[in-house]
C-alpha cells in the first residue's frame, strides 16, 4: 500500500467489495478466483484484503487466506505461456533460476537451495531432492513444478505480510466488512472440528515406530538418542505427565533420575525456553532409522501424532479403552 501510495480511506466500493470477496472465497472455497478483466480492481484489492486479514488476530484465518491466494497465483503461473514472466516473478523472490528448455521435459533449472527452501514443505515422493535431477547445484523443473514451488513461496510471503504485531484502526466501513468475514468464518470453523487428544493414553493406538520404542524401553532396552526424543515428545504430546514418562525410563540399567527428569521436563516444555517439543516427522524418523513396521495408516500420514489421532478414532468406536500403566 505504501509503495502504491494508496490510502485505505480512499478506496472505492468496488475495490473494497472485491477485497472482501477475495477473503470470503478463501474462507469458504479455499481458493481465490481470478478476475483479470478488471485489472485495476484485481491489483488494488489485494493489498486491501491483506490489511483486512492482518487486522484480525485469527491465525487460522490468516493461514487460509495466504493459502488461497497462493493457489490463485499457481493457477495464473501454470497458464502463463511466456516463460520470461515466470522468470521475472521468481527473480522477485531472489530465486537463482534460469531457462533450461533445451532439456525436455524440463523448462527451468533452479538453485538447489531455493528449491529446498520450498520443496521441504511438500510430502509427495517426487519432491524429495533424491528423486530429482540435480546437476551442478541446479534442480531441473517442469513449468508445473516451478509454478508449484512459486505457489509455496507466495504463500510464505503472504503469511509473513499478515503477521503484524499490534492493532491498527481501520475506517468504519472497512471494519464492518472485516466483522462480517469473521462471522462467516466462525460459522465455517464449526464444520472443521479440531480434535484434542483425550486425557488418557491409549497404547493400542500408538504408531508402529512409537510402539517399538515403547516396548523396547519397557523391556529395559537401550534407545538411540533420537529414539528417546521421539518417544518422550510423543508421550508428552498425547497427554502423559512428565512423571509417568520418567517412570518409564526407570527400568533402564543406566537410569539417572536427575538427568532424565531434566530432559523429559525440557521436552515437555517445563524448562528453559518453555517450548513444548513435537515429535519428529515421519521422514525424519525414517532418515534416522526409527521408522519400522509401517502399517496401512502410515501410508496416509506424515507425522506419528496424526497416526495416533486417526487410529484413536477407529478404536473409540470398537473396544473399551485400554489405559496406560499407572
Amino acid at each position, binding site marked *: 500500500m505504501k509503495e502504491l501510495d494508496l490510502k485505505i480511506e480512499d478506496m472505492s466500493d468496488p475495490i473494497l467489495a472485491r477485497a472482501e470477496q477475495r477473503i470470503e472465497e478463501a474462507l469458504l472455497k479455499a481458493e481465490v478466483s481470478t478476475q483479470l478483466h478488471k485489472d485495476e480492481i484485481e491489483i488494488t484489492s489485494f493489498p486491501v484484503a491483506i490489511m483486512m486479514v492482518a487486522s484480525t488476530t485469527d491465525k487460522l484465518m490468516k493461514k487460509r487466506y495466504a493459502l488461497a491466494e497462493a493457489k490463485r497465483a499457481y493457477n495464473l503461473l501454470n497458464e502463463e505461456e511466456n516463460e520470461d514472466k515466470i522468470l521475472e516473478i521468481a527473480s522477485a523472490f531472489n530465486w537463482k533460476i534460469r531457462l533450461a528448455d533445451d532439456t525436455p521435459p524440463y523448462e527451468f533449472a533452479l538453485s538447489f537451495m531455493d528449491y529446498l527452501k520450498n*520443496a521441504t514443505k511438500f510430502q509427495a515422493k517426487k519432491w524429495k531432492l533424491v528423486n530429482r535431477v540435480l546437476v551442478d547445484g541446479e534442480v531441473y523443473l517442469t513449468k508445473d513444478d516451478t509454478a508449484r514451488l512459486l505457489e509455496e513461496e507466495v504463500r510464505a510471503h503472504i503469511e509473513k505480510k499478515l503477521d503484524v504485531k499490534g492493532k491498527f484502526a481501520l475506517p468504519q466501513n472497512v471494519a464492518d466488512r472485516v466483522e462480517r468475514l469473521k462471522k462467516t468464518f466462525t460459522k465455517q470453523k464449526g464444520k472443521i472440528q479440531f480434535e484434542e487428544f483425550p486425557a488418557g493414553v491409549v497404547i493400542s493406538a500408538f504408531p508402529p515406530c512409537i510402539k517399538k520404542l515403547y516396548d523396547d524401553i519397557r523391556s529395559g532396552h537401550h534407545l538411540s538418542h533420537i529414539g528417546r526424543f521421539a518417544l518422550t515428545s510423543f508421550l508428552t504430546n498425547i497427554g502423559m505427565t512428565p512423571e509417568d514418562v520418567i517412570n518409564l525410563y526407570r527400568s533402564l*540399567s543406566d537410569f539417572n533420575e536427575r538427568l532424565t527428569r531434566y530432559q523429559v521436563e525440557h521436552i515437555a516444555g517445563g524448562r528453559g525456553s518453555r517450548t513444548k517439543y513435537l515429535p519428529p516427522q515421519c521422514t525424519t524418523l525414517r532418515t534416522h532409522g526409527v521408522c519400522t513396521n509401517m502399517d496401512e495408516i502410515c501410508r496416509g500420514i506424515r507425522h506419528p501424532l496424526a497416526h495416533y489421532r486417526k487410529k484413536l478414532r477407529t478404536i473409540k468406536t470398537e473396544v473399551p479403552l485400554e489405559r496406560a500403566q499407572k
Partner: protein
Amino acid sequence: MMETKTFARNKFLEYYQKHSASIKPPTQIEKREFGFLLFKEKVMIRHKSSKNSDDLTKLLTTIVPSDAYYSSAYYEKPEEKMEQKGWLGADLIFDIDADHIPTPCAKTHDKWTCNNCGTVGKGVLPEKCPACGEQKFDEKTWPCEICLESAKKETIKLIDTLTKDFGFPTKDISVSFSGHRGYHLHIENRAVQALDSMARKEIVDYILGIGLETGFHGLEERGEKKSRVLAGPGLDDLGWRGRISRGTYEFLLNATPEELEKIGLKKKFIEALTQHEKKILKSWEEKGPWGILMRGGVTSWKKIAQRGVEMQSAKIDTVVTTDIHRLIRLNNTLHGKTGLKKIEVPFNDIEKFDPFKSAIAFKKGAVKVLVSDAPEFRLGDQTYGPYRNRQVELPTAAALLLLCKGMAEAKEEK
C-alpha cells in the same frame, strides 16, 4: 610408575604449549561456541567462547582437554544457554566414521564387553548380548588401516556428489582426518549457512539415497502393452541416474546367486541373469541391460538397481549433518582416544593421504610402557606389535596411542 592419565595430559599440555601456532582458529571465531572434554572427569565443558587465536590457546593450555571442539554454528552470544545463543547460521558438515561402514576387516580388531554379564566378543557390536540379552556394552575400538581406507573411499564418493551434483566449488570444501576412525568434510560459504535442519536432512537423504525411487530416474516401462519395453538410465548420465546405472553394473558384475536371491529375486530370473551374462555385459555399451530380461519385469530390475544405489551412496552419519548446533573437533588438536591430531587432507591428494603418517603429533622422544594387549599397528614407516603383557620402549606417538586406547600403562619417559 607414572599415573597414565596424568602422563597423557602432560603430553597434551606440552603439545598445546609448543604448537599453538599451528592451530588455525575457525573463521568468525567470536561467533563460535567451544567445548572441551576433560581428561579425568570425562565431562564436557560447553558454552565457551574465545575472541581470537590467543584466547583459544589460553583455553587449550589451561584446560588441557582430551578433546577440543567448536560449533559448526555461528551465534550472537555463543556463551549463553542454548535457547539464548541467537543462532545465526551454520556451516554444512559431514562425518564419515568407520563405525557406520561395513568394512572388509569386519572390525575383528574391536572388542566389546557386556556391562551386565561380562561376556566378551570381537568384531561389530551385536544388537544385544548373545548371553544375557542386555544392550549396554563397553567398547574398545581400534583405528585399523582397512577401516580408514574404507572411510576414505566413502569420503571420495561424498566429494564426487557434493561437487558434481550439488555444484559446491572445491575451494569451499575442506576434508580432514579426525585423528581416530574417520574423516570430516566441512563446507563453508554464505549460502549454506542459512539452510535449516529440514533442508540439511534432504541433503543427507540425497547423499545416502534414502527414499530414492528408481522410477523417478528413468527406470520404467515405456510404451503400450505389446510393444512394452523396459528403459533405464545410462552409465554416463548425470546425478543419481548415472550412479544408479554404475552401481547396478558394479553389483551385477560381482554378485553371487546367493546375493541375488537375498534381494528377493526369483530363482528363474537369477538363472536367466547368469545365462545372459555376456549379453548383459555387452549391453552397457548401448542402452544398458534393462530391456534384456522382460520376464522379471520392472520390479526385479528395481530391486537390482536399489542395491546399486546402496553401493554408490556415501555412508555419512545422518545425525551430524542435520544437527545445526553440532560441535566438531577443532583442526590440529589432539584426539583423546589416540593422541593423533585432526589434520586437513590436501584436497587433490586424498588418494595418497596416509593418516598414520600425517596425523602424528609427537615426533620426538620415547616412552617405556607396559602393554597389556595390543594388535600389530603402523605409525609412519614403522610397524609395531602385536604385544601382550610386555614392557617395551616405543616412540612417543606409538606409546601415546596405546596409552590413550587403554592398552598400556606408562612406565618411564626416555
